[in-house]
């Protein structure tokens, strides 16, 4: 096909395009500089500092991999790692299953569906710290009946955190699933009905394959959210209870992000180790997220 001749008024006109092509650095530079100052540079400096002993970034001294060795020798870090993995598995399954079924129920043309959607979404609007304190009070009020309290052992703290995060995030994931469910083509559902598919068959063979993009997004979000979880963890239990195991202190309900934060505050000898933990943490989240994306993407169908 031959190109249409430009009359000089269209957006892709040479008269408009050429100056933009020539002057684009002028337009992107301020944002690009901000990106470098606010993201790229701190990121590179962060990686550099993980190989240093430092109190302030000015007096950093290169120590090689010593910080990484120190980080992995820290019993608290290893424990936080296990905690986070367990927490991620439980919360991904729980949040996505519940959010999907609530979304499914709320797309069945029931009365007041919009009101329910709003109500279920609302917990997501409250900040993590506030939620942490509120739920700590709720749990303690319940546990008081059994003469115990939330931070008495790690089990209460762990499941408390699961409940809190599920309560907070189900509404958000539900909205994404609702959007996915509503975009399932009506004719496919009708065809399934005509072919005599049962409700379960329709769900597993028609609906779920069609909402796979939403599942990809939601599992990605819940995965990264559970790994990055910080404020809810800090406010609900703060890592308590702390116990002494094999001559080292371990905060039983501490997740990775909180562990990194408290490591930094031990003393200047630990600043580098905290930084090393943060780099390990970044690599871990990045690898997991990419792996999860490729795994679920493969199951998506083209409509």
């Amino acid at each position: 096909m031959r190109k249409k001749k430009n009359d000089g008024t269209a957006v892709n006109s040479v008269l408009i395009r050429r100056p933009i092509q020539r002057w684009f650095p002028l337009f992107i530079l301020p944002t690009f500089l901000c990106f470098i100052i606010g993201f790229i540079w701190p990121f590179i400096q962060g990686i550099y500092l993980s190989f240093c002993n430092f109190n302030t970034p000015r007096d950093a001294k290169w120590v090689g991999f010593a910080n990484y060795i120190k980080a992995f020798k820290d019993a608290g870090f290893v424990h936080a790692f296990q905690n986070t993995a367990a927490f991620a598995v439980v919360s991904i399954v729980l949040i996505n299953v519940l959010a999907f079924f609530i979304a499914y129920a709320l797309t069945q043309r029931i009365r007041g569906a919009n009101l329910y959607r709003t109500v279920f979404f609302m917990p997501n609007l409250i900040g993590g710290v506030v939620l942490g304190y509120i739920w700590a009070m709720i749990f303690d009020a319940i546990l008081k009946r059994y003469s115990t309290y939330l931070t008495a052992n790690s089990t209460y703290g762990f499941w408390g955190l699961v409940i809190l995060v599920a309560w907070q995030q189900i509404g958000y994931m539900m909205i994404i699933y609702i959007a996915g469910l509503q975009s399932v083509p009506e004719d496919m559902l009708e065809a399934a009905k005509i072919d005599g598919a049962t409700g379960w068959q329709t769900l597993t063979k028609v609906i779920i394959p069609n909402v796979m993009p939403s599942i990809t997004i939601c599992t990605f979000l819940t995965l990264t959210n559970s790994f990055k979880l910080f404020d809810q963890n800090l406010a609900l239990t703060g890592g308590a209870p702390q116990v002494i195991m094999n001559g080292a202190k371990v905060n039983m309900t501490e997740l990775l992000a909180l562990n990194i934060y408290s490591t930094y505050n031990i003393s200047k000898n630990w600043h580098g180790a905290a930084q090393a933990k943060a780099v390990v943490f970044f690599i871990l989240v990045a690898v997991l997220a990419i792996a999860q994306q490729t795994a679920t993407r493969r199951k998506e169908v083209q409509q």
Partner: protein
Amino acid sequence: MKKILALALALVMVLALAIPSAFAADTGRVYWLNMKPEADEALQAMAKVYEEATGVPTKIVTAASGTYSDTLTAEMAKSEAPTLFNIGNGSALLDWDDYALALDGAAVLDELTTKDFNLVNEAGETKALGWIYESFGIIVNKALLEKAGHSLDEITNFDSLKAVADDIHARADELGFDAFTSAGLDDSSAWRFTGHLANLPLFYEFRDEGINTQPATLTGAYVDNFRAIWDLYIDDAAAEKTSLTTATGDQAEAEFGEGKAVFYQNGTWEWSAMVDKFGLNPDDITMIPIYCGVAGEEDAGLCSGTENCLAVNAKVSEADQKATLDFLLWCVTSEEGIATLSSIGDIPFKAAPASANGFSVAGSDLLASGKYAVTWAFNYTPNVDSWRTGVKDALAKYSADQTDANWADVTSAFVDGWAIEYNMVNG
């Protein structure tokens, strides 16, 4: 070519926005990174007076509450770093020793009435100046005490305190008030016990052993005294022992302020809340030492100390250091300076006027009558937040079920926890 020109232009544009107004004067500069948000307004006004009088650029920046160490780390990395900054305790001094100028010989040290509050490093150099101090003990509502048929004179040691408290607690329903306020272990309150109350076993142990730097290990010789006073706090109070983890500092303050309890462990900083907020009669409230059953404690005074020690940055120019020392001297000798500092709290300087805080006066009276001061031994705590968390968690468990086995966990958190934290910090 034009592309490069465009790039250059854009660079100039951005740089023009960020040209620093750095005109360094020979007079030096003063930059105080302040830790006390409540003192910000008064200090800013004072800095203005000083700058107008001397022409030395004087800047005071206050870190938001609870973010001091983060702010300090960030500010210290800048080229215009603070010249005057806070070091909280002996543990923090280990982190910031390189940055702190040795103050020995500085004129401002001669203005102090006591050197007890200064921070001295292991080489014996004075690195930070304790400029404001606080005391804590047991706040007593004398009016309620009398209503219960007791008087302050009865209480001279742990046994007499326990006798009075037990009696009040036994008759709490009839009297309408209890002995102690809730010993909350919520974060807003736990420091009163894991920090302040734990000071007593630490202080007496360090006194016996003659310790004056951070020790690597503890013997825990006085941990049983800690148990005795803790038992008293939770046994002779209305609060439920299993719900202490969520009992807050505000709750305990309100219980005392509203006359629901006779005794309340806290510090001199509570004076204005008690008098202004809760409207208690200043003549009805006072502060007595914390007794925990140590021999000779009849002669104890209040626990006095500080986490407000000022250090001069050793890594700024000499002109800046001199300007900062001159500023400090002016603060503690000039009329405006002393008036400002004393409005913030009790200050250990010769020119300081008499305190308006009844609790501080009670503390000074005790010292004047020959009692010994209980210093803040907890300032040596390694990785202080983590150590206190360990003690708090063990205390919470013990409070829910006061058995010897559970107390052994408290002892372990206290003694073993200290050694672990010490090794962590220095590891």
